[in-house]
């Protein structure tokens, strides 16, 4: 096959496939969210299911807020405990997440995982 034809065919297929996915996502997202909205209207009391949804709405990815003073203190203490015997003074000036930002769901999952090991 001519290389230009192959290019046209390839880009056509890629666009068609991804356009089809867009369609499907749009459709099922509408269904899912419509249903969720109905549920919210009907049930005011906070059921486990709804809690999940609310938490997921708080999923606002603000890395700066993620680490609060308490946690900072805990981490600092831990570092200090480990590092004491190297004759250097440390001060934790900034704690950065390594790797990608963690959505709240991951945190929840991690906590469940940690507690399941107790």
């Amino acid at each position, binding site marked *: 096959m001519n290389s230009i034809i*192959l290019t046209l065919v390839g880009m056509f297929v890629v666009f068609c496939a*991804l356009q089809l996915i867009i369609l499907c996502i749009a459709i099922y997202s509408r269904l899912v969210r419509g249903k969720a909205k109905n549920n919210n209207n009907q049930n005011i009391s906070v059921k486990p299911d709804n809690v999940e949804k609310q938490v997921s709405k708080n999923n606002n990815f603000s890395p700066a807020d993620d680490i609060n003073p308490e946690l900072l203190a805990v981490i600092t203490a831990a570092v200090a405990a480990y590092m004491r015997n190297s004759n250097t003074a440390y001060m934790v000036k900034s704690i950065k997440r390594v790797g990608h930002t963690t959505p709240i769901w991951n945190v929840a999952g991690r906590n469940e995982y940690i507690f399941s090991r107790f």
Partner: protein
Amino acid sequence: MWDDFINAIKTLAAESGFANITLLHLILIAIALFFLYLAIAKKYEPLLLVPISFGMLLANLPLGGLMHPELWDVQPLDFGAILHHGGLLDLLYLGVKLGIYPPLIFLGIGAMTDFGPLIANPKSLLLGAAAQFGIFGTYIAAMATGIFTPQQAGSIAIIGGADGPTAIWLTSKLAPELLGPIALAAYSYMALVPIIQPPIMKALTTKKEREVVMKQLRPVSKLEKILFPVVVCTLVILILPSSAPLIGMFMLGNLFRESGVVGRLNDTAQNALINIVTIFLGLTVGSTASADKLSQPGFGLQALLIIGLGLAAFCIGTAAGVLFGKLMYLFSGGKVNPLIGSAGVSAVPMAARVSQKVGQEANPQNFLLMHAMGPNVAGVIGSAIAAGVLLSVLG
């Protein structure tokens, strides 16, 4: 007795690597050490480049017998001979040749991928599609050089997918003789994305476009995230069955992640399994770049062209993504920042971070990262589909 001793030493010396090393071996060892340096000192995609370059080093120490390229040049493969005469890396290379490792790596990557930003803004899939022009544009260029077969050209073009396992998977099927250089080029350029992309992105956009702040993404419910892998996998494989190994395992991994009921499998898919496979894949892919294999005439030229064409592939893909982003900027009435288009080349998550960085240079209040993650992961799906097309047509 002294004579016997001397003779024995002489025999061993004659069978030593020092006695059998050639200039090509030395050149390839130097290249392997150079990539090892890049991987460790410069942190260029070390997870793959450390095993790949070490595999290349091992394969170019003469007579080590870890890899026997002649076993893999037979058509059809003689598996009995491989089992009887293969070295360690020959045996591990079976997982590449039989197409097992790349899908398993996709399983792990799927388990690490969050499609939330893509589901929140499905239109970003189109940016992931546009960037695949880097693949097909490079195919045209590679064919135009006249020294590559269509299969080789397709394998070189897939470097533009900026997705290592996809490139290795397709190349092992279409042009296994080029596997080493293509894998090295793919991972190196992926590591170079922060250097390659910004000039292109700035050249193709106005400052006003780069300053566009996109509106916050809507939250995505758990159910939408669970449905996504099932729907995408079904659709894509129905459209293009040849993409099944990559897309199927990618989406299974993501289902492990999002379903929330198979934490054990999710954990293993993104840790022990993907790491084991990565070690085996890297080592053996690197070992295909051995002097024994590459001594055929013209290979040096091919390797140089691969370096050039690979760079072109990344540039074309970036440009196509940004240009399509400009289109979306126009049609959306200025709501879409075209910078997120460049993330469509994949290179997750590097390309998305580049979009974020270039955006923030133009406007310090501009946080594009999450918006760029959409095209970024869409690019992975897009290149898997492109690889399927190339395999269907050329395979």
